[in-house]
């Protein structure tokens, strides 16, 4: 997983790492040349020391770092083989580096060695210390990269879990059955059982269908439009019994879209809002129309009501306005998480009164 994340950022991540390490090494080479010239006081000029340092240092980083990346990749190298690699690389880099510097500077290898020989002890300590320091630096760098990659992966995992939890919670919220709605429906049933048993039977069927659909929706990821429409049909059927002549409704689902899969409970809150804030508080009641249409590669879902309208509900009860808002922002968050910018939710005033709520999602 770590590698997958690193790979996605750069076409040749290991090569990139290596080149960065080589670049950093040049800084060390420069510092070492300075130290050799002005602190250790070798009997050679700064330019000579710098060229020799660059040659040895670059070879060292090629052997050690290149070897590490080739053998172990981006993973943390096992300690013992890595130390072994360093022990072989260090003298090799020293030997071949000097060999390389000599023709570049036009100075025979023996003279280069002679210049150093005069201060052999200081030279040995200096070289060893630089190696130890550089190796310590790269070892830490490898560890840091490893830790950073791990932290990033952990963060990505946590974000994914959080996103999933939020999705589930939003879906559950929307699939909630309001106790007020349930008990009002039961009260209606209670009255109908004695007065009109066949109608009571029909209402009970609708209640069962509504409860079953609502409860199963809270678990499913996707559902067919036919299922969504049958849920809304059952809900509106119940409301029709309760509101009587105050409510008229129509559902319009073209045959071609019946099997289209959509996230569950996306339209239901819009329908419930239309009833709760638009039609129920309106003295004369009104009508609600629900439509699904295909528009190219987009699915357009529309809920139109002739109720009190966007401000009507707010006027009669200020706290109801905010609950509309919560329901809608839940839908928005779900759409955002599922489709990003490719889905929209719009609310417009209907004429002469009411609301047109429209959802578009990609097919």
């Amino acid at each position, binding site marked *: 997983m770590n590698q997958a994340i690193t790979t996605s950022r750069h076409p040749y991540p290991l090569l990139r790492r290596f080149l960065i390490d080589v670049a950093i090494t040049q800084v060390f080479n420069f510092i070492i040349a300075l130290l050799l010239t002005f602190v250790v006081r070798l009997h050679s000029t700064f330019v000579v020391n710098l060229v020799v340092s660059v040659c040895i240092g670059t070879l060292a980083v090629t052997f050690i770092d290149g070897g590490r990346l080739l053998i172990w990749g981006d993973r943390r190298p096992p300690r013992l083989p890595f130390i072994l690699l360093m022990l072989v690389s260090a003298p090799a880099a020293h030997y071949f580096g000097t060999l390389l510097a000599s023709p570049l500077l036009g100075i025979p290898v023996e003279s280069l060695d002679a210049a150093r020989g005069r201060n052999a002890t200081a030279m040995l300590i200096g070289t060893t210390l630089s190696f130890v320091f550089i190796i310590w630096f790269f070892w830490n760098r490898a560890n840091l990269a490893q830790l950073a990659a791990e932290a990033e992966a952990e963060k990505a995992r946590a974000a994914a879990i959080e996103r999933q939890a939020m999705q589930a919670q939003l879906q559950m919220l929307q699939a909630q059955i309001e106790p*007020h709605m349930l*008990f009002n429906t039961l*009260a209606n049933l209670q*009255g*109908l059982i004695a*007065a009109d048993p066949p109608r009571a039977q029909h209402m009970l069927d609708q209640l069962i269908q509504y409860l079953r659909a609502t409860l199963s929706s809270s678990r499913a990821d996707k559902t067919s439009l036919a299922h969504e429409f049958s849920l809304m049909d059952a809900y509106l059927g119940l409301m029709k*019994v309760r509101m009587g002549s105050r409510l008229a409704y129509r559902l319009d689902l073209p045959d071609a879209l019946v099997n289209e899969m959509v996230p569950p409970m996306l339209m239901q809150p819009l329908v419930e809002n239309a009833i709760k804030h638009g039609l129920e508080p309106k003295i004369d009641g009104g009508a609600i129309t629900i439509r699904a249409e295909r528009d190219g590669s987009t699915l357009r879902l529309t809920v139109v009501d002739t109720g009190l309208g966007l401000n009507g509900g707010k*006027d009669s009860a*200020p706290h109801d306005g905010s609950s509309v808002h919560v329901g809608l922002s839940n839908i928005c968050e779900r759409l955002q998480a599922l489709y990003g910018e490719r889905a929209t939710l719009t609310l417009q005033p209907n004429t002469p009164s009411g609301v047109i709520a429209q959802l578009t999602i990609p097919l």
Partner: protein
Amino acid sequence: MKQIRALIAEDEPILAYTLLQMLQRLWPDLHVAGVVENGIAAVTEALAQRPDVLFLDIKMPGKTGLEAAQELAEEWPDDAPFPLIVFVTAYDEYAVQAFEHAAADYVVKPTSDARFAKTVERLKARLEQHTEHDAELQRIVDQLRTLVPGVPQASSAGERLTIIRAGIGNQVRMIPVADVHYLEATDKYVNVVTADGEALIRTSLKELLPQLDGSQFWQIHRGTVVNIAYVEAAVRDDTGKLSLKLRGRERMLPVSRVYAHLFRQM
């Protein structure tokens, strides 16, 4: 003995019918004088029919049961006994707790015959006590004070209104809130009354109230809010009606029963 009359206000037809059936079963002597389907009709019908018992659904279009009860308490004539009000509500824990707290009569739907029979017994007992006609009114006024939630106050100074912008002709007059003597709701407008005159604004009193400083602006009637700084005295007339005398103003502002307690002497 005079026949007991009832009025039912319930917007769902089957529930109204169910309640009617239950009453016929458990209280055959009761005459149900009418069934209305919204809060506005509930107020007009109750004032016209003057029933002895009034069943008020809480959630109705037009006006809630509580709003209807409050309006009835303000508008009820002095020469008739105030009806016994029974609130009807679907399951709603908050509402039920509120009713318990206010010691109000209530029915939770769906209800059983056994439970409803107890409500009927209690109503019958209260009707037979022949209490003074003011007592029932006082009872409901006290209950409403507990039941009707107070006006939410603007939490920060930023949400509080300092200037009222009133359109007069082709200009917008800027009226400092502190200069307002009182606000009076008309049909869809609010009349803003100052020392200089009056101006109509197209905002409802309900929208305006939360933006005002509650310690400065007191509601004294369903449709009247007064700036207490301009009130000189509260005066009770021979019939016991309370009204406010404002500084430098002839017209007295009536205080409804629901808010009369605000002007009791210390």
